């Protein structure tokens, strides 16, 4: 990790830096200020970066794949070297026309009906995690580290077909990749790539009912995917599916810890839950994507040059008063909610049905078993920095469980 030192931000309209802790903790206020004063902010950092914060600008850019390329979706000081239209991790880094090919064969595995089958196992798993938390009997637990974090890892491991007994090994890989990328030297035979290659080879000879088998049987123009492609897709699903969902679950619990009325409404009125889930996704949308300008273009009078970065802060769009009534309020039963938490246009999150299921089950089981809890110490909550925003440390005090509640 050799990121250059970057000075503190002097002015969010002309020098913003979305990787700063100050942005992580007060992003919604910054978006509000900018929306009023400078709806397309600019910074010279990262070789030139734009930050549009209005719903309609974010939508226009997300849909305009001619002027804005997905070749790079995470802002860095350098520019990606894997050429368009495929990019490093198809389909998220791909542009038309290749994008559609790379996306198509994944859709069936993530369709709502395919995903619905995972509900029961997810419920069992959340309850196991809660059993462990409560067995600890300390009263204070970390809802991000001990609960939210584990859910997407276990779900995707089960979907891919990682054997249960390899669970610890697999979580070790994920931890290394997400928490400490490039931080430790690892022998080639101990990498996740090597592990996945072995698993892929095994599924080719002994197919099972899992996602790796499904991928080994998928074809592009009649040809099976190469092992490298299958492995790359597995890696993308891990990277795109884990800290995003972890963030959404953590932020939702952060919310419920502080809002007893919303906890009560959730518990007493199951019909409100689908609306509450979409409102949690709107209000705490964890994902900001980026694009690279592919052809010179103007947005709201701002001249964007080739290879400038453009951030797509879906969370900022979700709080735009032009697009939502009472945009800055959390309205648990909001009926009209065209939020962009999963993006829009051709890159709509493939995992959206899965993420929604995980978030619903995680919140449902937590609130059923732990109907009363609060932040142990608001000062100790730590939010992630960068493009995926959510609590990474979330100590909460358990006040009542379903066993102790009347």
């Amino acid at each position: 990790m050799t990121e250059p030192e970057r000075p503190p931000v002097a002015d969010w309209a002309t020098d913003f830096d979305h990787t700063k802790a100050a942005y992580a903790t007060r992003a919604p206020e910054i978006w509000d200020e900018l929306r009023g004063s400078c709806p397309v902010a600019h910074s010279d950092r990262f070789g030139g970066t734009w930050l549009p914060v209005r719903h309609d600008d974010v939508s226009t850019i997300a849909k305009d794949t001619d002027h804005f390329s997905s070749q790079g979706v995470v802002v860095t000081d350098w520019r990606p070297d894997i050429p368009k239209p495929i990019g490093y991790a198809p389909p998220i880094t791909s542009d038309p026309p290749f994008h559609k090919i790379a996306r198509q064969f994944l859709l069936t595995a993530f369709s709502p009906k395919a995903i619905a089958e995972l509900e029961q196992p997810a419920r069992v798993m959340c309850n196991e995690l809660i059993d462990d938390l409560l067995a600890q009997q300390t009263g204070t637990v970390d809802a991000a580290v001990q609960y939210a974090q584990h859910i997407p890892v276990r779900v995707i491991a089960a979907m891919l077909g990682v054997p249960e007994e390899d669970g610890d090994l697999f979580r070790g890989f994920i931890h290394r990749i997400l928490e400490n990328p490039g931080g430790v030297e690892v022998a080639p035979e101990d990498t996740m790539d090597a592990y996945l290659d072995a698993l892929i080879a095994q599924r080719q000879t002994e197919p099972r009912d899992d996602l790796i088998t499904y991928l080994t049987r998928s074809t592009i123009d009649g040809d099976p995917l190469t092992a490298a492609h299958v492995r790359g897709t597995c890696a993308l699903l891990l990277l795109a599916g884990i800290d995003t969902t972890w963030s959404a679950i953590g932020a939702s619990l952060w919310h419920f810890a502080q809002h007893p009325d919303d906890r009560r409404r959730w518990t007493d009125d199951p019909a409100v839950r689908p609306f509450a889930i979409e409102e949690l996704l709107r209000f705490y949308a964890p994902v900001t994507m980026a694009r690279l300008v592919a052809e010179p273009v103007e947005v709201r009078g701002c001249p964007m040059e080739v290879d400038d970065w453009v951030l797509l802060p879906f969370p900022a769009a979700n709080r735009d008063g032009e697009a939502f009534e009472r945009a800055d309020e959390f309205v648990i039963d909001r009926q009209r909610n065209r939020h962009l938490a999963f993006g829009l246009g051709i890159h709509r999150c493939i995992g959206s049905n899965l993420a929604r299921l995980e978030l619903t089950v995680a919140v449902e089981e937590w609130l059923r078993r732990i109907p009363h809890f609060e932040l142990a110490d608001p000062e100790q909550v730590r939010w992630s920095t960068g493009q995926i925003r959510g609590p990474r440390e979330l100590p909460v005090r358990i006040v009542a469980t379903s066993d102790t509640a009347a």
Partner: protein
Amino acid sequence: MKVRFDRELCQGHNRCYILAPELFDTDDEGYAVLRVEGNVPPDLEEKARLAADNCPEFAIEIEDDATDG
């Protein structure tokens, strides 16, 4: 009331399928499929409006009857 659904705009967010499963199904890839032809039964009109108002891609439109009072 009639519902118009534009398959070209649909990106498979499935908000419609969650809110109004009586009116929208999904295909194998998760794109929406409109289940009603012609008029929406009156008891489903509110659900049709909900689906239209929550589709992030503006793929669903409601056509109110002129005579609808």
